[in-house]
């Protein structure tokens, strides 16, 4: 059993995820090329720009291998841009923006607006623990139309979906790694 967590390192807040994972005692590896996938048994797609990461996923032939591994059951977690890349449908994206399109849900890009509308909030994610988590929403997406088999893990007070899971797939529109919250990383390691 290798038990190594890969963090997709094409672009984005890779080191923030690695710091938390390592604090939890997990071994990590940055994934930039298909050969890096051989050495991992779960993968985080970090925050960043989904258009940039999507393009590089295609150019460096990572898109199909990651899809294959996740269909075989490899746990995959996308934060913010990563979640956009994992959703089957993207609203308000760039036309033709390449994505992994794995999870039966729609991600609406920049759903809150521009950077001036970014925020930090305390949210409850009962599946990962009782304590509320202080997390950052940075030009964040929202999730809509969850399909059958998708569990909603967290919502905002108005009911907007900000975290969901479908089997081995986990998405959060926010960043627990920016505020140093470890509960969701712990949960992801248990998938």
């Amino acid at each position, binding site marked *: 059993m290798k038990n190594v967590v890969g963090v997709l390192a094409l672009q984005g807040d890779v080191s923030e995820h690695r710091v938390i994972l390592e604090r939890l005692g997990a071994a990590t590896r940055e994934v930039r090329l298909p050969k890096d996938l051989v050495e991992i048994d779960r993968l985080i797609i970090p925050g*960043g*720009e989904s*258009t940039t990461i999507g393009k590089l996923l295609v150019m460096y032939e990572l898109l199909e291998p990651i899809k294959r591994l996740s269909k075989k059951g490899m746990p995959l977690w996308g934060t913010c841009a990563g979640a956009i890349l994992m959703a089957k449908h993207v609203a308000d994206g760039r036309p033709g923006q390449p994505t992994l399109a794995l999870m039966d849900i729609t991600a609406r890009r920049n759903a809150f607006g521009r950077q*001036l509308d970014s*925020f*930090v909030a305390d*949210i409850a994610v009962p599946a990962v623990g009782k304590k509320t988590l202080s997390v*950052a929403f940075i030009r964040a997406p929202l999730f809509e139309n969850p399909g059958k088999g998708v569990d909603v893990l967290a919502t905002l007070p108005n009911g907007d979906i900000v975290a969901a899971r479908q089997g081995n797939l986990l998405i959060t529109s926010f960043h627990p790694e*920016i505020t140093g919250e470890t509960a969701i990383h712990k949960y992801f390691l248990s998938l």
Partner: protein
Amino acid sequence: MAEKKPSKSTFTVKSGLARMLKGGVIMDVVTVEHAKIAEDAGAVAVMALERVPSDIRKQGGVARMSDPKLIKQIMKAVTIPVMAKARIGHFVEAQILEAIGVDYIDESEVLTPADEEHHISKHNFNVPFVCGCRNLGEALRRINEGAAMIRTKGEAGTGNVVEAVRQTHAVFREIKQLSEMNDSQIKKAAKEMRIPYELAKQVAREGKLPVVNFSAGGIATPADAALMMQIGVEGVFVGSGIFKSQNPAKRAKAIVEATTHFNNPDIIAKVSEGLGEPMTGLDVRSMPEAERMASRGI
């Protein structure tokens, strides 16, 4: 289910966006067309401005904030973050940029400074700021004023990476020196840098800046971008280097790839092939002091 009111425009929120840009390339664009080319090439953000630095250099005169109309058109044309430049100390230009809703303001030495003594009090703004530096003192003074992201100044519009290299080494060297100091030495260094002791102490303890650190000013090739990444910055700004070259779309994409794969010489070699002519470079050594943008706003 939220327990308390969400907080906007805190340091975490402001510096958080810069964290999302890491490992990426921020490109200067002067038209909607450029902005689309940049987004298609994989830019993580664009810097909307009227003239790229090499044209500002050539044409002279006073360089100001761009027309808000142009910035708004670019904001509409792309889905990635849009940054725009305000003159050093020109807090009204910054107010205008905040009013139209840009994602980041660059208080930039590339424009003609509006205040020779003061920078903008960036804590007063909800929008985050990035500022240039040549050394640790400049970086920490800007952070103390509220900057949520730092970049080296390099020497903009020259296509010559030498100043960015010098300044980046200076920042890292001075951080290392600070982290080897005892408390009374840190106090003295903080006084010399004109920053609070607590900020100097934090940098000494953590061995790095408290905000994301990019490189700018003179990056013209994929190799230049990878060089800055290997030296240790977290991403790059490319100004004149892309749209003043022979084949902007191809060069832009190559610089994006080289920034991601900065430690992979095979990939950098491959993307460096057949890019056409880079922008014409300037020798910084023969440049009179008055023409150097990096010595503005220290």
